[in-house]
């Protein structure tokens, strides 16, 4: 874990009042940047990560030595072109890649905070990350962007700070977490909390971890990120390194082996308590309710240009939920673009090499950057 030393972070000194009522201060927020901030400081893009992401959107994550989670989209010449834009990405509070979270060691006890960590919300995450603008002395971001939970943060950011981003790209997300999504998250949490090693969240993180529970949570969630067609085409009923069924409970099918593998590699890089806290934050997200049942009011003060994207095979954050955001924006005459990208890759499409999706973002950003900065508007 010495690679954690390579993580950049700011310490947020002033108190942050959380939605749960508690207050936190002097806490770390880990971040990474890509590209260069120009002299006018008008080319910054703040990217928000999804449930299991972190600040390492591109390049190689120095802690896991794996590729950044949005490597297809962020980098030189890519959709978020780091030759043009200065990309900032922070680890959300509650996360486990250097930001203040349940895995942070409490200096008083020398143990992880665990479930003594306060329950946080998407609103809290966004308010913490807002401090990055001060840190980089950026008056106004060119764009805020993110998929899934990252998209929820985009929506919350624009509603909290109406004139701090010229462009907003919420991708494959929702303004109000659905019952189905709460149900899937609860399934994952129950898997973790049923693991004997969870110990009411007070595992020490070194000798014992609720790895089995966390792996099952990841396996279940992973299914929801893919489409039925995608799974069928990739795995079908193919058998795993065997020519016949073995009449047992070993992984006979490739899909079983694949899910087991996904679960096992996930526990190496993710903290079970973080999984509980972040899924809870997603479940609590209801921007419509925050504005008295009228989502339009969340964006009433904003002049931000919105570009909303959904995917045909995403059944976790399906098109109608994304379209509700479009409808709310149109109701107040906001500047909004929307397209549903055709793909079989399910909710995960936003993380994958989907050329239509990536090229549309790339072109939209470069044209819009010229429009808003060099021409009038």
């Amino acid at each position, binding site marked *: 874990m010495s690679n954690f030393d390579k993580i950049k972070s700011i310490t947020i000194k002033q108190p942050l009042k959380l939605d749960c009522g508690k207050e936190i201060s002097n806490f770390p927020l880990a971040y990474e940047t890509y590209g260069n901030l120009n002299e006018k400081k008008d080319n910054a893009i703040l990217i928000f990560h999804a449930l299991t992401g972190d600040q390492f959107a591109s390049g190689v994550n120095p802690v896991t030595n794996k590729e950044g989670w949005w490597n297809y989209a962020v980098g030189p010449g890519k959709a978020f072109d780091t030759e043009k834009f200065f990309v900032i990405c922070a680890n959300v509070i509650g996360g486990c890649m250097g930001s203040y979270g349940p895995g942070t060691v409490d200096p008083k006890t020398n143990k992880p905070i665990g479930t003594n960590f306060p329950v946080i919300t998407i609103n809290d995450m966004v308010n913490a990350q807002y401090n990055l603008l001060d840190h980089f002395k950026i008056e106004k971001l060119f764009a805020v962007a993110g998929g899934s939970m990252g998209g929820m943060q985009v929506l919350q950011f624009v509603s909290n700070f109406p004139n701090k981003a010229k462009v907003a790209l919420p991708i494959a997300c929702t303004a109000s977490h659905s019952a189905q999504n709460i149900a899937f998250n609860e399934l994952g949490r129950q898997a973790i909390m049923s693991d004997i090693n969870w110990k009411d969240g007070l595992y020490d993180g070194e000798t014992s971890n609720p790895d089995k529970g966390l792996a099952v949570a990841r396996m279940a969630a992973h299914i929801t990120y893919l489409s039925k067609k995608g799974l069928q085409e990739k795995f079908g009923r193919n058998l795993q390194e065997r020519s016949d069924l073995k009449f047992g409970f070993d992984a006979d099918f490739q899909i079983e082996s694949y899910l087991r593998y996904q679960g096992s590699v996930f526990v190496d890089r993710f903290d079970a308590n973080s999984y509980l806290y972040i899924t809870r934050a997603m479940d609590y997200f209801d921007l419509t309710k925050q504005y008295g049942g009228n989502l339009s009011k969340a964006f009433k003060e904003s002049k931000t240009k919105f570009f909303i994207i959904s995917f045909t095979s995403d059944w976790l954050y399906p098109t109608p939920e994304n379209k509700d955001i479009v409808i709310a924006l*149109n109701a107040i*005459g906001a500047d*909004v673009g*929307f*397209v*549903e*990208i055709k793909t079989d890759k399910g909710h995960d499409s936003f993380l994958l090499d989907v050329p239509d999706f990536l090229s*549309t973002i790339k072109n*939209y950003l470069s044209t819009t950057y010229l429009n808003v900065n060099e021409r009038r508007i």
Partner: protein
Amino acid sequence: MKEEFKVISKLIDEKSRVLDVGCGDGILMEYLSKNKVVDVRGLEISKEKVKKCLSNGLAVVEGNAEYDLKQFPDLSFDYVILSQTLQAFMSPENVIKDLLRVGKKVIVTIPNFGHWKIRVDLLFKGEMPITKNLPYEWYNTPNLHMCTIQDFYNFCNNKGINIFKTISLNGQKTSKITPSNLKYKNLISELGIFLLEK
């Protein structure tokens, strides 16, 4: 058809909010943005075309006008444009109703099925006409509800829709259509451009 866009552009006041329904590749939207100070939005059904528009930075929403106009509040645009698309809807009548609800003024252009070449084709060949503006065969045409300038004129009168201006377009030539020259213009116009209000 650049000439049509010029005529439409002239009908639109500066500093107005415009919605282009069935905006296609966004050529008209770009033309308006370049030539006028307007805030222009688009609605388009084809994913490919929407992606093209967004790539050019245009505020276009993917959607079907027959269902998705509902999301726009009453009188939320100064002008709503429907360029050569009316004939492709399942229910043109309902679409026009919605356009008049959303826009303070509505600009509708229709390929004129009453043009003499079309009439001659049908009269002498006895086949469904195929022209520059209507290039499809009867079995693959997206145009479900073809009409003539006269038909649309009658429709507006019957429905109590105010026609402010009607313009005929024939090749590069534009001219005014009035009640007295309507029969003649219906014979020689390739395109009819209507400025309407509820």
